[in-house]
């Protein structure tokens, strides 16, 4: 189940007995767990590539849970955060959720609630990572396009016909067709609809208007 490449649950809590008990529970449920006593300790070992999720205590001295959340957001971390707190104070939980927390649980937390939250978070992480991978794949494909092909792509996803594109680019329709075929090939898509969806994810399209 737990392999170096599999997801890891990172537990950050300054309260040692709390940290130990959560780690035990997660391990018993079959998760790989790494625990840290402070935000600083966690950041020192932080690996942006590591899959999994973060179970974070809200009230910690020095760097608090919310501060760590901010630090990770700044680094574009994909780790979903489950906040654990012994006392759920509403303003803080709202702030945490706004900043994209995956969940907000109150101690004592029931194992099913925690495990469900962890599963959801790991799934979310997986999806995020998959998205991220796809996106970087698309970006890699985009990078192989020539400037001319890139222009043609933008017109295609904007819904222009070959003839219209040729007009815009001041060339003949036959040339546009060849470019178009190259784009479809390089982007590894079968249909224009697929191409549109892909480029939308990269934020391309619409700029020609």
């Amino acid at each position, binding site marked *: 189940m737990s392999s170096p490449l599999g997801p890891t649950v990172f537990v950050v809590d300054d309260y040692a007995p709390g940290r*130990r*008990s959560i780690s035990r*529970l997660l391990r018993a449920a079959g998760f790989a767990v790494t625990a840290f006593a402070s935000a600083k300790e966690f950041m020192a070992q932080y690996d942006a590539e590591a899959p999994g999720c973060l179970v974070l205590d809200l009230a910690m001295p020095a760097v608090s849970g919310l501060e760590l959340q901010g630090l990770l957001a700044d680094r574009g971390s994909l780790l979903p955060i489950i906040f654990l707190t*012994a006392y759920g104070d509403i303003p803080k939980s709202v702030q945490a959720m706004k900043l994209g927390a995956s969940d907000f649980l109150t*101690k*004592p937390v029931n*194992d099913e609630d925690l495990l469900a939250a962890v599963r959801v978070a790991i799934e979310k992480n997986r999806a995020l990572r998959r998205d991220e991978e796809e996106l970087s794949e698309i970006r890699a494909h985009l990078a192989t396009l020539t400037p001319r092909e890139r222009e043609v792509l933008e017109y295609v996803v904007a819904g222009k016909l070959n003839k219209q594109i040729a007009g815009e680019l001041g060339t003949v329709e036959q040339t546009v067709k060849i470019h178009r075929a190259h784009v479809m090939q390089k982007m590894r898509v079968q249909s224009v609809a697929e191409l549109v969806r892909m480029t939308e994810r990269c934020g391309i399209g619409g700029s020609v208007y």
Partner: protein
Amino acid sequence: MSWVTAAWSMNAAACLTFAGFYFVVWCKQRQSPAYLLFSCSAIAAAAISAFELWMLNSRTVDQYESLVRWIHVPTWVLTLSFVAFVRLYLHAGRVWLVWSIYGLRTLVLILNFIFPVSINFTAITDIRQFSWGGQLVSVPVGTPSPWGLLSSVSLLLLLIFSVDATITVWRHGDRRRALLIGGSMIFGAMLAWHVPLVIWGILDVPFFLGFTYTAIVGVMGYELSSDVARAAGLARELEISEKRLNLAADSANLGMWEWDIAHDEIWITDKGRAMLGFDSSEKLDFDRFRSRLHPDDRESVLKAVDSSLGTGAEYQSEYRVVLPDGQVRWIAGRGHVEFDGDGQPVRMRGASVDITQRKLAELEAARHRNEMAHLSRVTTAGELSGSLAHELNRPLGAILSNAQAAQRMLANGGVDVAEFREILNDIVSEDKRAAEVIRRLRLWLQKGEVQQHSLRINKVVRDVLKLIRTDLISQNVSVDTELARDLPTVTGDPVQLQQVLVNLVVNACDAMADCDTPEHQLRIRTGIENGGGAVIVSVTDRGGGIQVKEVEQIFEPFFTTKAKGMGLGLSVCRTIIAAHRGKLWATNNAERGATFHFTLPKDASAKEVLIT
């Protein structure tokens, strides 16, 4: 009867009257032998007068001889008792002179009875009669004995003794006495010289020794009677001052008492009896008194009595008595012990006062104070509920997660005994931690009686930081503690002192939260103040400082600068610290923020009983 007979008889009668009177006085005041001695000398003087009168009227030589012989007995008594009187009453006269006079006079008496006739005469040959003052009086005619000189020497010694004693008394400053008694003594001793002169036939007068003594006896009588008069005056003054004292005692509601320890009898004024609920006729002893004491106070009163009997220190105690009708009164008693020569306590005298009203007012004030303190604690607990929930939920969370982890491990089938042991250990210790939080909370919210414990202030500081740890974290306040080592212990209620510190720390946090300073730093310092007589605690913040004209204003009830505060915190804190005989005050810091200080006197007894 001629005037001579009348004069000698009256003289004897006067002396006897004095003697009788002072004998009665002596019977009533046995501790003053001067009265007895005076009485003896007066009887002797009366006897001498009687003998002389007899001699005047004597018609035969035989009769005269025996009279001359026996008159030495009253003379001996008079001399001895008179000299002793001077020594005892005037505290004057040389001791060697006393013994010389005694010796010589006794020798004269013995020789007087050894010789055939008397010490004065070897023989009386005739009685000469002549008219004196219109009456025929008899004087002896015979051969004076040279041994009679011994008698004259004793008379001389008596004169010297009298002069010496008079000078001593004069020098001591009692001139009236010196003049009166000394003067009459010298005068008498000089007049007594007519006796040898008559015996030697130089002077032609009857013996009048009785009169010379009468002068002395009269003066002494006068002197003693002025003593008696003075004593009577003193007795009257004493009575008046006693009345005044009783009046003062009554109007001050004082009950005066006296405990005769040897006979175990207690005398007490009616006021005091009423105070303790005793009839005015009831006979009292210590057990009766003890039976009135409230069971809870009995031991402390007995201890106070024992300690004063043992050390002679002033007895002092405040206690409750339960009257026969069940009514409870507070009494304050004070007294001192008197000891006999062997250092045994014989008597204890003192006064008691009913302090029920004062005590009830004190208790009422303390009750109010405690209620206010409790109210303030409940309010604070409400404000700190986040912290408290946090403190409680953390261990509960750890217990739940540990237990559920164990359940899962069991379900998985792979039971690792070592891990299970660790889990159970954690569960046990976390459970205890939760119980401790609840215990602290209960104490905090309890409205019990104020406890008086000997405690260490540094522990109070640490307990408070534990209690509000989460609040400090959530407000991003870091605490810097400077706790002095080896501080003396203080006496107080741990919860109330925690309350004061919590209030000061929460205020400091609020002050810093209000003023947007980047550094939310709080400093708590403990140390010694007043040359080691007190412990001081200071809480320093780096907020905006106290922004009112008068810093003292912030301690007034209902004064607040907070939107949701009641304005009772600091005024309650001040009341609590005052009840602990300490002081609470505030100062603005030179740089920024404010500091709150409070002092607590160190334990009177440096006992090391600690509350942990």
